């Protein structure tokens, strides 16, 4: 078996007295596509935010692309270069054009020449089918377009891992599909993906493994077929009934 690209070993985290991650053990192999679901407050966002150290864990070990995440900027920066992230609220930089949003990190972090960074950024924009908006500002775009720009921005550092934190939850229903389409394409290209989402159709279509979390624990994990057809725990059945029931 190959070494995992992400590994959680007995990871615990608290927000003050609230035990948000409890004895998390998880290992992800390169190229794997994982969907994480669970009720709100179950710790799923916190889990993926620990992978690029937007949140610090207090106990246990997290290793990402062979680097152990510790309390020093060097390991954090090394890991962040390998991990792209897409947020629920897009978090594009509103004072920069779409193109500048994409080239910012390659130029200042990756030390890529501006011309080259722009060329690569345009390629990424074409990939998410939004190249014609390159010179607009984010707030001039629709939510779906903004989220596609955010995906392109995360890809500009050519990461090995992509994290999605509820990427479609802030979108109008009409725009969810255009974002999911881009994510499906991305999944087909073999990048390692961890996605917190309630889009169960997406989970069925692309996930290698679905993880169900509740109260800070991983309750159940299984390939989508098994997960949806034969859930084991009552909590999982309960959750699936609510989310698939409508």
């Amino acid at each position, binding site marked *: 078996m190959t070494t995992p690209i992400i590994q959680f070993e007995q990871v615990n985290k608290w927000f003050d007295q609230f035990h948000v991650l409890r004895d998390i053990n998880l290992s992800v192999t390169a190229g794997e596509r994982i969907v994480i679901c669970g009720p709100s407050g179950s710790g799923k966002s916190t889990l993926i935010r620990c992978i*690029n150290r937007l949140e610090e864990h207090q106990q246990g070990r997290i290793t990402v692309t062979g680097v152990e995440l510790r309390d020093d900027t060097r390991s954090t920066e090394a890991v962040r270069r390998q991990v792209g992230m897409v947020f629920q609220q897009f978090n594009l*930089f509103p004072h920069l054009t779409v193109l500048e949003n994409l080239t910012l990190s390659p130029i200042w972090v990756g030390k890529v020449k501006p011309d080259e960074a722009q060329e690569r950024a345009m390629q990424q924009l074409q990939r998410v089918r939004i190249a014609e908006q390159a010179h607009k500002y984010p707030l001039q775009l629709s939510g779906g377009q903004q989220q596609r720009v955010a995906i392109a921005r*995360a890809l500009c550092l050519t990461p090995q891992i992509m994290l999605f934190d509820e990427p479609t939850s802030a979108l109008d229903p009409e725009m969810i599909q255009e974002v999911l389409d881009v994510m499906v394409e991305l999944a087909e290209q073999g990048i390692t993906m961890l996605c917190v989402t309630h889009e169960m159709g997406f989970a069925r279509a692309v996930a290698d493994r679905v993880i169900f979390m509740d109260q800070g624990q991983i309750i159940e994990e299984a390939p989508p077929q098994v997960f949806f057809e034969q859930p084991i725990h009552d909590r999982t059945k309960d959750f699936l009934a609510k989310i698939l029931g409508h």
Partner: protein
Amino acid sequence: MSPSSTPDCAHAAAALVPPRAAPNHARGLRQWIRTELLGSPMNVGVTLLMTALLVWQLPGWVSWSMVHAIVQPDADACQTARGLGACWGVVSEKYRLILFGRYPFAEQWRPLVATLGLLVLLVASCMRQCWHRGLVVAWILGLCGFFGLMGGRLLGFSVGLTPVSTDQWGGFPLTLMLSTLSIACAFPLAVLVALGRRSDWPLVRAVCITYIELVRGVPLISVLFMASFMFPLLMPPGTTPDVLLRVLAGITLFSAAYLAEIIRGGLQAIPRGQLEAAASLGLGYWATQRLVVLPQALAHVVPGIMNNFIAIFKDTSLVTIVSLYELSGAMGLAVNGDPNWRPFKLEAYLFITLIYFVCCFAMSRYSLWVERQVTHR
């Protein structure tokens, strides 16, 4: 299909309505008067009140300031016209003293050239077309030129002009130089203090908070007083920097504290998500602040910042307290020292008011332009 088969509440549009042009409202003078001046009973009332005020006050003001005004520097004529017409003669008589203070009379071409040079630099710096590296070089040369011309010496070396010590500098050049330099130094300091106040390091935070609270608890006059009179007492004799430098440092440190709080307000308006996005893209602390946080934070507080700049510009008038005669101080010097002209202080005040107003109004209009530049919706 029979009409009875559909319920009353169901309805489908027969055809899509193509967009049409908005109704065209006449935008002429007549229309403007009708809507803006006479739009509602309240509007009519205000218009009548304002017209009455104008009819009551304007003729008297025109008569005083223009019709019966004395323009030539003739003190006797002014005395005769007193109460009836303005005595602009005081300006024609004293303008050089007002504009340049105690600077040696024969050498006053030097502050004139220095001031014009500084004004050209300031205006150029406000224009987008001039924002490249050459501007930095221009500023270094410009400031050397300013101090060389004003003092006749530069960094201790003579530049071939009669030396004029800084306590003889005065009037508008002093006002302009003090405000320009203290704004230029206070702004970066304020940004650092504002960031420091939000730092994760308790020591940095404590230093910044102490500085801000100390400065805000003291009036500018006492800061200037200390810079000018107390500071030299604490230093070994002969090591005290020039009074101008001390006063400049005083104004800078004072304004930076206020400015820092304005900027902190802008920093607080930046959502956490922006920091997280920057972090996830691998940007470090300084890159995040410089490229992501500050451009947005400063854009939020442009009006507050410009407010502060305008206040600094006018606060330079307080340096009179330490015997530096900037524009308002030089005006006092010019009029109070001469019994013939002392009665016409009001006109002299109106003259410097005009100068202050032109400068401050320009700054305020510029601020509106900057606001438009930083809005990207």
